[in-house]
Structures are given as structure tokens and as C-alpha cells.
């Protein structure tokens, strides 16, 4: 669940950055696709590594979807919390509609990066078990 929430935070922040690049920190005139790819990949590999098996990894990737939508939605309606602006439903629809590609990309990158992390873990386990025990 913690990993799903973490992946949701990454995907939600990424979607908000992609939809409102000049209002996010760091701000830019245009969202950097490279920044998004690196962010999504760099976070999904260690998340995959600490996941013990493929089934858990798949479940946490799908569990991260509601988290990501929640994070992006909360960010997009944040002015309403201090009583400015209105139409929360429109803002939420906008960020989900315009950030849909990023949510999909995040899913894809979580699967790819998670698989890389898991395979790295497997290799490490195989290598550790093949190593002869040390004698002191």
C-alpha cells in the first residue's frame, strides 16, 4: 500500500506538471518529457526492487491509479482550499482529461521500471546464493 501511494504521488505530481508546467515547481514554459520519463523510471525501479514478487508489483501498480488521480485532483483544486476559484469538478476533469496520457505513461513506466527493479533483485539473490560463505 505504501508503495502504491508512493507511485501514485509520483504519477499525480507528473500529471499536474504535464498539465500546468508553468505553475508547477520547477516551472517551465513547456513540460519536459525527458524530466517526466526520468522521474517515472527512477522512482519505479527501486519500487520494483523492494517489491518481493511480480503479483504484488502488478497489484501495487493498479492500486497506484486512484492515488495518482487523488494527488493530481488535490493539486488542481488547491486554490479552493483558501476560498479562491471555483468549479472543482471542472478542474478535476481538466487535470484527469489533459493528464490522461501521463497517467497511462506512469502505469507503463511502473511496469517497465518495476520489472527492471525486480529482475535486479533476482540477479542479486542468485549471485548472493552462488557466492561461497566467508570464513573468519
Amino acid at each position, binding site marked *: 500500500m505504501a*508503495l502504491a501511494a*508512493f507511485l501514485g*504521488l*509520483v504519477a*499525480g*505530481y507528473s500529471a*499536474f*506538471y504535464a498539465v*500546468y*508546467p*508553468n*505553475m*508547477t*515547481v*520547477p*516551472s*517551465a*514554459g*513547456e513540460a519536459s518529457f525527458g524530466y517526466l520519463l526520468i522521474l517515472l523510471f*527512477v*522512482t519505479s525501479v*527501486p*519500487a520494483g*526492487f*523492494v517489491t518481493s514478487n511480480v503479483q504484488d508489483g502488478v497489484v501495487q501498480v493498479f492500486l497506484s491509479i486512484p492515488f495518482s488521480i487523488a*494527488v493530481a485532483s*488535490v*493539486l*488542481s483544486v*488547491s*486554490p479552493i*482550499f*483558501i476560498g*479562491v*476559484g471555483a468549479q472543482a469538478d471542472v478542474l478535476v476533469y*481538466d487535470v484527469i482529461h*489533459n493528464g490522461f496520457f501521463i497517467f497511462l505513461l506512469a502505469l507503463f513506466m511502473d511496469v517497465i521500471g518495476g520489472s527492471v*527493479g525486480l529482475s535486479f*533483485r533476482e540477479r*542479486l*539473490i542468485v*549471485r*548472493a546464493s552462488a*557466492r561461497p*560463505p*566467508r*570464513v*573468519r
Partner: protein
Amino acid sequence: MKWLRPADPVARVERAAWAFLGAIAVVLLLLSIASSANYTSIVVAQENVYVVPSFRVAFTGIDSNGSLEADGSVTVTADFDIVNPSDRFLHATQVTYCGWIEDLPAETGLNTSRVASDVVLVQGASSRYFFRMICPPPSMPRNPIPARGNASVVVAYSMDRRSDPPSFAALQNITDYAAHVLGSATAAPWNHWALVFLSIDGVPPATSPTAGSYILKIHLIARQVGTYLV
């Protein structure tokens, strides 16, 4: 001889991975909070900034009879007091102004030569005619407006016979009428309209031509004062 378990490299890397994930989570949380605050401050600026305008019309070259002489001129000084209750620093980037003078001779039927070009403002049963006197290209003042403060942007627009002979002839006719019927050349009412653009500092303009309209305009605040007559 004592056999020991080898140090578990998986557990070691796993600890490092958890630490890395924790650090990234903290950084992302901070970035999300900063983004939320940044976004909120932009929306606050977009919604709460307002402009208090004041316009002064001054004539030079008024003779003893109250008529505007051929070497006279009219100057409209627009003073925009921009009140910025937000936490963002702003810049006034563009001011567009247009001024119309009420065409009293046309309204009374004394001079109907400008009726076709005048703008008619219907108010109930009566119609008022306005002649567009001044409408120069936009000016770029670049005045800074501090956060949680206010600043004045003053722009002056002049017109004389050399700059716009047809409009100046109309002005002479209208001010003559005002001087002789209302007692003062400055008595003819004006309609002022202005559009003030302010840019929000720290919000980069969208660079992509395919960016959504909400992104293209978010760094700009537009405030309109008065009525544009068409």
C-alpha cells in the same frame, strides 16, 4: 573454525532502496506543496488584482472665446492605480486606451457630417453619439507592481492637428459647441476605455504553440475599464 552467514547483499540494497524511495517521497511531497502554493498564488493574483482608473482631459490652445485654436491640442492622461493583494510581483506590460467624445453637434442636428462614423449609444429612449477621438497603438509601460501593494501606471495620449487632422477638426467643432452652449470647451463628456495587461513574475509563458488556452494566458492578467464603443 566458525562458519558465519554472509552479509545479505539483497537486504543491504533493499535498505538503500527504501531510503532512496523515502528521500524521493519527501522531495516529491515538498515539490507538490510548493507547486500547490505557486498555483494558488497565481490564481489569487488572477482573481484579486484590480485597477482603479482616473482620466483627465486637458486642452491647450483655447482662445478667449473658449474655442480650440488650430495649434491647440488635447491630452488625455490615464492614471491606473493597480492594487495587488496577492503575493506575486507583477509588471504592467501593455496598456491600450481609446477615448470618445460625445458628439453634441451631431446629437442636436447642428452638424450631421459625422453621424455615419459616430458610435450611437442608445440609453432608453435617447441616443447619444460618440466620436472616436483617440485610439493609439498599445503602450508598453513595464511598471513593477509589488506583492501586497499597489502602483500607479500613468499614460498620456495627445492629439493635435498634425497627428490626426480629421479628428482634430471634429474636436474643434465639438469643443466650439460645448464652449458656446455649455460654457466650457471641456464640458463635452468623454467615454474612456482601457485594457491593462499585467504579467505575473515567475510564471514562464507557454512556449508550445499547441498548449491549451488556459496555459497560454495564465501568466497574464487582463483588466478592462470603461466601455468600448462599437
